[in-house]
């Protein structure tokens, strides 16, 4: 059994942000687009980091269909262009807009300037979703420090490098919603992929701390813990219980963000599953193959 954060991918050198073919836009426009709680109706400016595939791409499509001006960031420019093209009709109809920027979260030095450029271009900022992540497979007896550190750089350091300037911006404007796509894998220390789970557990901790730190300022931080999401990367997995589509996952994530939910399991059944798994005593858990 394998838990996926956003989606599992095989790590190739150098580490990459998730990428996958972009399915056609399938989210219907909503007549009266829902909005984030406690913000003005025109507060529809967002950034999605890790947007070229999977949940990230689905989020961009959905936001564009709701009239958001959304900046889509990922490492692969071609896939971003395809995404922008796929969203063009919906965005034109709703008054939304998708702007794309090739960006590797490993390039943390680039982030301050890129963040400033995007906020300026969007005309402000109301929502940020960090969806970048990698999950290289691990053999049961494999210990690969170089690959593990690279995973920490993308999943955790990249998250912090993006969320810090976003948190500061939201704090100063006293509103904004920051969403981090973590994983159910962060809930227990599984034998399958120790460092992947570590990065997600670290992300959970970091996002919770940001939530507590920013709450009094009117800023919300939402932790998303996906299970299996139906993307190209999960097609080859043998067992994918409670799998849902990327579009459903995106809808659930945006619903959680709008409702100022602290932590949302996607699909929600994972809340019960992980509650049980968290209760398994360690001496039993280590004998289980999950």
């Amino acid at each position, binding site marked *: 059994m394998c838990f996926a954060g956003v989606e599992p991918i095989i790590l190739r050198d150098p580490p990459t942000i998730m990428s996958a073919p972009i399915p056609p836009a399938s989210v219907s426009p909503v007549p009266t687009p829902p909005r984030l709680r*406690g*913000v*003005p109706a025109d507060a529809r400016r967002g950034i999605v980091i890790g947007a070229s595939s999977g949940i990230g791409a689905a989020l961009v499509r959905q936001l564009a269909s709701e009239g958001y001006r959304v900046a889509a960031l990922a490492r692969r420019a071609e896939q971003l262009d395809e995404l922008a093209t796929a969203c063009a009709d919906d965005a034109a109809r709703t008054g939304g807009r998708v702007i794309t920027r090739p960006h590797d979260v490993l390039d943390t030095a680039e982030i*301050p300037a890129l*963040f*400033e450029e995007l*906020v*300026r271009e969007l005309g*402000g900022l109301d929502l940020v979703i960090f969806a970048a992540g990698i999950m290289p497979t691990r053999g049961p007896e494999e210990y690969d420090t170089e690959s593990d550190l690279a995973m920490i750089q993308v999943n955790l350091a990249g998250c912090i490098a993006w969320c810090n*300037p976003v948190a*500061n*911006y939201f*704090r*100063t*404007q*006293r*509103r904004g919603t920051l969403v981090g796509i973590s994983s159910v894998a962060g809930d227990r220390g599984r034998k399958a992929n120790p460092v992947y789970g570590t990065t997600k557990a670290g992300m959970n901790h970091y996002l919770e701390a940001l939530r507590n730190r920013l709450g*009094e300022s*009117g800023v919300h931080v939402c932790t998303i813990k996906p299970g299996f999401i139906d993307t190209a990367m999960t097609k080859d997995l043998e067992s994918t219980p409670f799998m849902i589509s990327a579009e459903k996952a995106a809808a659930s994530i945006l619903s959680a963000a709008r409702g100022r939910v602290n932590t949302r399991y996607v699909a929600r059944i994972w809340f019960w599953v992980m509650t049980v798994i968290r209760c398994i005593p360690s001496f039993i858990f280590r004998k289980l193959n999950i």
Partner: protein
Amino acid sequence: MSATEQTAPRRDYEWVEGWGMTVGSQARVLRPTTVDQVAQSFELAREAGVSLALRGSGCSYGDASTNADGWVLDLTRMNRILSFDAETGVADLEGGATIGQLWKRSLPHGWWPKVVSGTMFPTIAGAASMNIHGKNNYRVGTIGDCIRSIDVLAPNGELRTASRDANADLFHAAIGGFGMLGAITRVELETKRVHSGEVEVTGVSCHDLAEMMGRIDARTADCDYLVGWVDCFAGEDDLGRGLIHEARYLEPGEDPDAERTLRVAHQELPDRIMGLFPKSQVWRILRLLNHDAGMRLLNTVKQATGRLEGMRGPYRQSHAAFNFLLDFVPDWKWAYGRHDRHGLIQFQSFVPKEHALEVFQTILRRCQAAGFVSYLGVLKRHRPDPFWLTHSVDGWSLALDFKITPENREALLAHCAMLTKLVIEAGGKHYFAKDLSLRPGDAERFLPADRLDAFAVLKRELDPDNLLQTDLARRVFGDRLL
């Protein structure tokens, strides 16, 4: 130059707004830690072709430290106390050090800042740039009056030390010069010897404004601090009623436990009310009352309890508790709303003593007639000072806090403009740290023309590229200065 000094100033991108929360913009914020980094910041802005607004803790109510057209240079990380002489009470501070840092360093040695604002958070450079005053302005003047010297790093690259003896023009122009001439990177100032960590406070209830002003005038020789709270909802029969707080420093020997009261721990404001309710949440309760009916009720209750306070007689209060009233309830301004340009503005007018009573009565009446009643009114006595663009007069100030919303914004600012006309015609002045309503040409009517001309000449010399700008400077002075 050390390796640290060679690094670029920290850079952030954030929402920068006035303390009243009603004006602001997103901006790149540079946060230098050294004089060299301040110089670098000037160069970076010049290379990028953008203007730069100097900013301290952002405690000015309006747009004095915001810059919708450019970047912001925030000095708060340049905040070391360079030295404090426990024998003379003279402190040498970097510009970003706050008033709070200063008193926490000086008080255990028996020294208190001569001039403090109603909050301890302003930086000393910001306080100097705005030439702030306290509740003892009539007695000790503004903060500029207790500054010995300042270092000013101008955008042209010159670092000048200015005092009453050297570069006196710069000294008198930069203090109160609202950050237009250069960054004040160092301030040397005097503090006052105190013999206790407490002051003796007396509350005096007054039936109307005339009685309050008469009482304050009569007590200026005897009191170290005098401030009046005004119930702006009171009708014609008791127009301007309120409560005076008089305070005096304790003489040697009056406080038998001075060693304890001088400790910082004795000054710290409690974070809970009656040890139970967290003060950090009080703004939420105030928010429920933040409308005319609620504030009328609060003002009435305060007036009633003020009478009881007057009957209670003198009592002792720590310096911090007496002076930093605005810090008593954290984030209380959020009661005015936190989003979407909701907030507060303060209309503080300074009127010569000959006309003050009449003008302030007229202001209170017109506010009531227009439906813009201030939720908080504060009366203070002032004296003139030698700084070029000073707001101080031999007279009085009345500070009025108004709730501002997107809906009432235009009408409220028009109302303030009408009041401004009244003040200027009476020979009065306004204070850039509080202002959001002056219109082009207003400042030229209350500032001496020769001083303003000389200020413009100095600005052209020190800042030939007009690098230093703020929204306030553009709004109030336009081409006259920039």
